């Protein structure tokens, strides 16, 4: 007999969420089959060595428009064990809110000095670091004037740890109306980077974003 789990929420004012969110509750995985549902991503990553610095397209090139920032954090599992050698794929809109992606039809301004995509790998202690340009907010629903708040996309693959998430920024006016933030409820706080001093660094702002991979559909072999 089928056993049911969570009912997924639909993001308010998010048309795609309405079109794509399963309406039936999730089925529980029979315990004998649980491990088969936990992919292990082989650590064979292709990364260019300069990709940690997304503030410029390549070393020696000028910086993109806007505010250069640093994002750092530690990747751990729920038990607090650091996840080393994990791939973090990063993408964010430029200062004007535009992605350098062929399907971004917003018409917002591209920046010839900003690429907006980079990859880093966590070190022995699960730490990661990258630089980018602080992204612009963009108008996601022009018809109702709803903006997507500033955010950076992060996709994490490390052994059996797999997570796609976004880092948001503190005190942004559009945070409260964001459909995904609404679904997260109080937990949204966890997805906001915490500012730190960067006067000794060649960036203007620093954000600490510690990431914990866990919860449902996640298992760790360590």
């Amino acid at each position, binding site marked *: 007999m089928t056993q049911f789990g969570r009912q997924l929420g639909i993001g308010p004012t998010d048309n795609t969420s309405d079109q794509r969110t399963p309406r039936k509750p999730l*089925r529980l995985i029979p315990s004998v*089959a649980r491990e*088969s549902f936990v992919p292990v991503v*082989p650590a064979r990553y292709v990364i260019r060595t300069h990709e940690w610095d997304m503030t410029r397209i390549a070393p020696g090139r000028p910086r993109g428009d806007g505010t250069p920032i640093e994002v750092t954090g530690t990747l751990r*599992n729920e038990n607090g064990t650091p996840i080393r050698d994990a791939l973090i794929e990063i993408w964010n809109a430029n200062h004007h809110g535009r992605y350098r992606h062929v399907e971004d039809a917003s018409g917002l301004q591209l920046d010839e000095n900003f690429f907006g995509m980079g990859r880093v790998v966590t070190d022995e202690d699960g730490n990661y670091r990258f630089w980018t340009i602080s992204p612009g907010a963009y108008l996601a629903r022009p018809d109702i004037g709803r903006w997507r708040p500033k955010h950076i996309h992060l996709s994490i693959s490390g052994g059996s740890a797999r997570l*796609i*998430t*976004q880092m948001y920024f503190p005190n942004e006016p559009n945070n409260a109306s964001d459909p995904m933030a609404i679904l997260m409820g109080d937990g949204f706080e966890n997805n906001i980077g915490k500012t730190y001093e960067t006067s000794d660094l060649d960036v203007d702002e620093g954000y600490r974003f510690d990431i914990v991979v866990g*919860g449902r559909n996640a298992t760790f072999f360590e």
Partner: protein
Amino acid sequence: MTQDNGSNLLKATNEDTSGPFFPIYFQDESLEDLTVLGPGIVGAPSGQHIILCGRVLDRHGNLANGVLMEFWQANAKGIYNSPANLGHPDLDSWFNGYGRLRSASGEYKFCTIMPGASDSRAPNITITLFSDGISRIVTQVFFEGHKANETDPVLKSLDTDDQARLIARHGGQTDGGAEIYLLDIVMAGVNETPFFDDFES
């Protein structure tokens, strides 16, 4: 760090939607065809070549453009390349069992080998979907004509309609000898594909 009340576990970072713009730039062709090791390399994984293909559809029957799909499966002998099987004699050096592709249109085609049956399980491939509007959703696909489907614990946990929604149809053979299997994944609505959640929910 934030902790759950009454638990020593750290609070997990919320999953979030991948949005519509997962970078095509991060595409890795070696993860879209697991039968090929790479240009100029001698060697191949064991097993019958198969092509799993179909469409990912939304609640209105429209193609779900921009979906990121990940695949996870055992090798031809039914062994997963996971840390739990480290040193297992039936591991295949040339088969990791993890695939990934992003489909611009919502149609997909994944080239791999037929996974072996393992323990009490029928041959299957786990599919993880990421897309705009949702966070990760997970399901498992089976193959038409396998006797073990009748006793598989995942299939047996579902009603017959849902079982049918997870069994890929055999659709002939390519000139190169790969068996074709067809499966549409319906994210929501009528004929919705069953998606799964951790058993500890």
